[in-house]
């Protein structure tokens, strides 16, 4: 397969994942804002912008944080070059570029969703529409992944696509966790307290993990359990451990197909060794924030090594 096409598949799935995760983050914030007082709601919207790293461009055009302004900025803001509408356009552009390496089912799922969402996001998204829009973005991800699982040849393209998905997903989970950790647990003495279970529940919602967590923990919401769940539990598909495991499968398979292990495999093994056998206490001892930053750095290094090893660029 062409290096450029492998790059196209990798980024098509990164952008798809990013759009879906952004929609989930907004949905969770929306729910939070609806059930809380104005001050909490404002803090919630502020944290959405912070999680996405958009403070500077957002504050350049807005004085305060309110839902309508935030979701329009995130979804379609003209001065936000990473808005969801642009992400979805990038999904489609990459899918078009890799057109001969994806099935018609996948292409049609991408194209049909893009047509609908691009039209929806062409106009400001009001209060009454936002739920529908966010749901449609999430479903776009579901449909593309469904078509992908059912129709894609399990060749190298499959593994590049999945590598993009899981690197992006674990980045997203790490960022969401990191942001809430900072807000809620400024000092270690808070660890273990149930300062604001609503905020933690909100974290679970942003990664679609509320139900699974509650089922596993009989509804006990506390920071430690949630960190364990989102970092170390490899049964939950958005946890860091799950994403690591999936990425390991894909990079191992790619190395097997190519008959050699590249730099990306070595970096992956290092990252795996870091998390292997770790307990939540050890993470807290090291510092959750530092731990998460380390995960993000390692992910970035792995992504760069994949691009290098498999000749994504000339």
């Amino acid at each position, binding site marked *: 397969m062409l*290096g450029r096409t492998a790059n196209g598949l990798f980024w098509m799935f990164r952008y798809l994942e990013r759009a879906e995760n952004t929609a989930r983050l907004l949905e969770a914030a929306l729910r939070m804002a609806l059930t809380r007082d104005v001050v909490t709601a404002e803090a919630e919207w502020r944290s959405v912008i912070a999680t996405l790293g958009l403070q500077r461009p957002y504050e350049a055009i807005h004085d305060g944080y309110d839902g309508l302004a935030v979701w329009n900025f995130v979804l379609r803001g003209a001065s936000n070059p990473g808005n969801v509408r642009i992400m979805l356009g990038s999904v489609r552009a990459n899918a078009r570029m890799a*057109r*001969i390496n994806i099935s018609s089912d996948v292409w049609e799922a991408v194209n049909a969703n893009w047509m609908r969402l691009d039209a929806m996001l062409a106009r400001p998204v009001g209060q009454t529409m936002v739920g529908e829009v966010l749901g449609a973005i999430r479903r776009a991800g579901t449909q593309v992944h469904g078509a992908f699982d059912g129709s894609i040849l399990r060749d190298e393209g499959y593994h590049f696509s999945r590598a993009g998905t899981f690197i992006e997903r674990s980045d997203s989970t790490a960022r969401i966790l990191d942001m809430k950790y900072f807000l809620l647990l400024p000092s270690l003495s808070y660890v273990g307290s149930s300062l604001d279970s609503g905020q933690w529940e909100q974290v679970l919602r942003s990664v679609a993990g509320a139900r699974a967590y509650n089922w596993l923990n009989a509804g006990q919401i506390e920071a430690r359990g949630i960190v364990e769940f989102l970092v170390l539990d490899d049964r939950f598909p958005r946890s860091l451990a799950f994403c690591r495991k999936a990425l390991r499968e894909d990079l191992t398979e790619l190395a097997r197909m190519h008959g050699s292990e590249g730099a990306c495999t070595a970096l992956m093994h290092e990252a795996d060794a870091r998390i292997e056998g770790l307990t939540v206490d050890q993470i807290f001892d090291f510092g959750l924030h530092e731990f998460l930053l380390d995960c993000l750095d390692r992910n970035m290094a792995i992504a760069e090594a994949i691009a290098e090893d498999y000749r994504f660029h000339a």
Partner: protein
Amino acid sequence: MHAHGSNFDEMFDDGGQTRPAYAEYCRWYGEQPGEWLKRKNREADDAFRRTGITFNVYGENEAEERLIPFDMVPRIITAAEWRKLQRGIEQRVRALNAFLYDLYHRQEIVRAGRLPERLLHRNEAWLAAMVGFTPPGGIYTHIVGIDLVRTGPDEFFVLEDNARTPSGVSYMLENRETMMGMFPDLFSRIPVESVSTYPRRLARSLAACVPPAYGGGKPVVAVLTPGIYNAAYFEHAFLADQMGAELVEGSDLRVVGGRVQMRTTRGYQPIDVLYRRVDDEFLDPLSFNAGSVLGVPGIMDVYRSGGITIANAPGTGVADDKAIYSFMPEIVEFYTGEKPLLPNVQTWRCVDKDSLAYVLDNLADLVVKEVHGSGGYGMLIGPTSSTREIAAFREKLVARPANYIAQPTLALSTCPIYTRAGLAPRHVDLRPFVLVSPEGIDITPGGLTRVALKKGSLVVNSSQGGGTKDTWVLKD
């Protein structure tokens, strides 16, 4: 432009009776409830949009993807009509290849005084780099599109030869897919020649022209596209996909060890046959347009030393400009020793004094085209132009007469399209697609029917509001 007088209708004769080729279709059509047809018509549009069969249009702002409108009434050709067309097309394509070989070798046709030398050496499409070189298999035009128009029951004319990189074949294939999906019962009632093997035949045809450096095994075929913003990108991806070939851009390619190689995830891999959908001038920045990023630096050297096959060969454009077109009857006769089976449209070469005088006197009745123009741009359609437009065009014509040819306004045949008010006649043309390989000339039955959707209009180009129809050749 508007046709003068009455024109030939493909479906109905002058008395309003259905022609035999359309009899069964019309019977079927009459049985379908009106509301259901309306719904089907909308469905077709959605189907094309969903599958992304679009072409890009560059407007004043940004590139925009548009659908080429599809009309669900087929254009039907009888087996007997097709056999005649097939023979004429084959003869013409054979002559085109012989002509190109001759032009880049001994130029017998010029020596014989049958073609003025100036037409070659002043021709923008002429490539000095091709002189004395014979492409693999001796094939210049692996893929040709011959544009035909009809004016009467037995009167077909060649309007244009497309010997560079003819496009539109993906519409021929998708139109059929769409029709079979929407109206399966029609195809069980009417036996129609299949077109779906085209991509496989194209792949085989290209693989039959491997270069001397080919190292055995499955020949590596790649389609070279300018990229996703090109107007015909959909078609490039479609053909690569259907052929099982790679779809490459200039940035994927590099000359390594005397071969053109593509950057794969495993390193550089040589390409045997490159079906390029990039114009000559962008193909090699070392040989032609130095600023081009669409091509491959050094590909012409590799080509000339037998390292790759380029389809169509560089320099084939010299055979399809409109000044050469006017000599096609002589060209066919010179190389085949036969009278042309398919006539040209009468053409005045404005470079000739007498012709120019005639054209200037009759501008209001003629169609004047640029010699190197395409896509319906840069032309004057006398009958629909204002006095001012004609006056402006006259100046251009007088300033550079050699740059123009003129033709009469033809009474193009019509074929009905579906409208909410029922069937309505619109002008059509036909572009059959021809594959040439050392194994022979292979013409897919039918081709692409383009249709002017505006009432009375004769311009069928998709860039100017034309649509397409499925084209049926009936089985005997």
